[in-house]
């Protein structure tokens, strides 16, 4: 009974913030308490209150079914984590009420997407997410932001049109939009002619939103131009919503191979661009791409361990990417630039706590034990089968370490107290899961999940990957290779979506 009210409560709180502009801040806190309460109920004996429901009392065939399954619960945890970090971050700042309203809508839409089991409902919520993040990216009205978010809106809208065509083909052939019914129809006649086309349309459409190369060429601009809190939410949370849809689709259509190919392209492409990126926020944005590659390879591996690894890695990535983006925002406030060379030159002006947060985020993202990057990555490494996947995972790891090696001089002395860091308490919120990830994961996924983490071979491998990455960084700095940036304009982005769709269709056709 309660499930449909959860996303709606955020929308209502957003509307309340319109009505009483002075209380906008309070609505953020109320929403946070609601979400924390929801997670608490889901883990308590009262969890039956959150039983699945088809909204409006329709049958499952045409009604919209909402369910709080393990996948939804994991992403709900991520939502609550990032929401609390952002609310803490924004608490001391001057807020415009429009910002608060959009933030409420964003979180509400995220919760709705995580819960829904219906294809058309997914389409509507993805579009709502596009619109809200479009407005949030450009909230400061700087020209860079306006252009980045316009590009995002156009490309995402084309992607969603492709998704809608896929939804239409599914409905024409199945007569229902519920994921369970579609899965049954696909299982009954796995060789039906409509399946490759529908799957290609749906995957290509959602890939535009999910940060997958070559569909999401809007991402580096949008994520690096947005205000710090919004970058953290977009990279940590919103981009994962595309991944959620892909996980759900992979349970319906046979997508393993195609997801592994997309994962390899995304992971390696993102890492190469991150290595040659000279701007901190842009580098973080490219890293979001490469980490999405990890998730895709995990989804494609299609085992229980890999599936749990994907959920864990999504949670871990949300925590350290949000930490890094918030710290990058604080560094920008102190220095007035996010250029890495400039940051290193003026490192004495960056507050110590900001530098500590950047260091913690770096250690976590390159996958050094005992932080959450490693703990979440170990099951993925253990579950990836085939030498091709192993090599891709290693290459992405090396690329990650090589690009973050650029930040190392930032952590050299002098260590003097300069100014306060406005984001300190949100660092604390985000550092909790980074440091205490093992017990959280054991509680969520059981002891079998923890076994690869304790495997010393994987630990040695991770450390070796980081060391290799540092070497690659030294070589790469000598060579000074730049990857072409012209790719991230509007027209190549548009072309890449269409070309990518055709490629996926051909690959699915061939099997």
């Amino acid at each position: 009974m309660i499930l449909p009210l959860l996303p709606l409560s955020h929308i209502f709180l957003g509307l309340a913030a319109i009505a009483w502009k002075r209380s906008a801040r309070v609505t953020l806190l109320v929403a946070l308490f609601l979400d924390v309460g929801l997670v608490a109920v889901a883990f308590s004996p009262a969890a039956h209150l959150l039983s699945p429901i088809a909204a409006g009392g329709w049958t499952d065939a045409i009604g919209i079914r909402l369910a709080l399954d393990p996948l939804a619960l994991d992403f709900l945890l991520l939502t609550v984590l990032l929401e609390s970090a952002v609310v803490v971050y924004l608490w001391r700042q001057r807020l415009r009420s429009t910002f608060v309203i959009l933030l409420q809508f964003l979180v509400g839409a995220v919760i709705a997407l995580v819960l829904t089991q219906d294809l058309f409902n997914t389409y509507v919520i993805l579009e709502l997410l596009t619109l809200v993040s479009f407005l949030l990216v450009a909230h400061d009205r700087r020209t860079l932001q306006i252009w980045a978010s316009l590009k995002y809106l156009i490309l995402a809208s084309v992607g969603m049109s492709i998704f809608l065509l896929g939804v239409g083909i599914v409905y024409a052939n199945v007569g229902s939009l519920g994921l369970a019914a579609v899965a049954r129809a696909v299982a009954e006649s796995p060789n039906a002619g409509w399946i490759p086309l529908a799957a290609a349309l749906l995957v290509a459409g959602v890939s535009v939103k999910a940060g997958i190369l070559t569909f999401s060429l809007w991402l580096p601009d949008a994520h690096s131009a947005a205000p710090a809190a919004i970058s953290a939410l977009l990279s940590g949370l919103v981009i994962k919503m595309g991944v959620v849809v892909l996980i759900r689709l992979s349970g319906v259509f046979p997508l393993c191979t195609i997801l592994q190919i997309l994962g390899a392209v995304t992971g390696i492409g993102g890492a190469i661009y991150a290595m040659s990126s000279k701007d901190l926020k842009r580098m973080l944005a490219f890293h979001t791409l490469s980490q999405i590659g990890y998730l895709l390879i995990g989804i494609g591996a299609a085992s229980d361990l890999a599936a749990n690894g994907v959920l864990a890695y999504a949670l871990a990535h949300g925590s350290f990417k949000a930490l890094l983006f918030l710290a990058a925002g604080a560094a920008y406030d102190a220095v007035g630039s996010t250029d890495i060379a400039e940051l290193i030159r003026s490192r004495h002006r960056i507050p110590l706590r900001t530098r500590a947060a950047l260091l913690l985020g770096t250690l976590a993202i390159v996958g050094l034990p005992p932080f959450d990057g490693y703990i979440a990555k170990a099951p993925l490494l253990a579950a990836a089968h085939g030498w091709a996947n192993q090599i891709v995972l290693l290459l992405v790891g090396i690329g990650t370490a090589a690009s973050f090696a650029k930040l190392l001089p930032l952590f050299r002395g002098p260590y003097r107290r300069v100014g306060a860091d406005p984001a300190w308490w949100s660092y604390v919120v985000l550092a909790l899961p980074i440091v205490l990830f093992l017990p959280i994961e054991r509680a969520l996924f059981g002891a079998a999940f923890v076994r690869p983490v304790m495997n010393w071979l994987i630990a040695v491998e991770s450390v070796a990957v980081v060391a290799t990455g540092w070497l690659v960084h030294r070589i790469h700095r000598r060579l000074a290779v730049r990857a072409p940036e012209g790719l991230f304009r509007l027209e190549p982005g548009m072309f890449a979506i269409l070309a990518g769709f055709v490629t996926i269709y051909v690959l699915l056709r061939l099997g």
Partner: protein
Amino acid sequence: MDWLNGTTIAMLLFAIGATALIVRKDLVVKLLALGLVNSSGILFLISIRFRPEMEAPILPTRAGMPIADPLPQALVLSAIVINFAILALSLVFVMLLVERYHSTDCGRIEHAVEVDRAAPESRSAREDESASRQDEEAR
């Protein structure tokens, strides 16, 4: 002319719109093309599960006639509203860009933005901007 049904026209609209999005340089034309692409999705949804002899699913006037599936037609309403919102908002943003760059040419705007990114605005310029925003709020 049997092939000329809603589905094929939708495909045609999508192809025209997508081509124009890549080929045409003017941002307003690009948005019109985006409108075409979005409309193609709507037309496609309406025309699946519909044959010319079917009745509209409102109130059957002729007894015994097959009725078109009402669900896609209900879905289309949300899609139309979303597409309207997207076009309206993106036109507003194009207006903002035109105010700053006095051009709707996509290549020119992109070039100007890239120049801006390479040479970030000076500190004082940013402070001016935040001051003007505070004025705006005070008003």
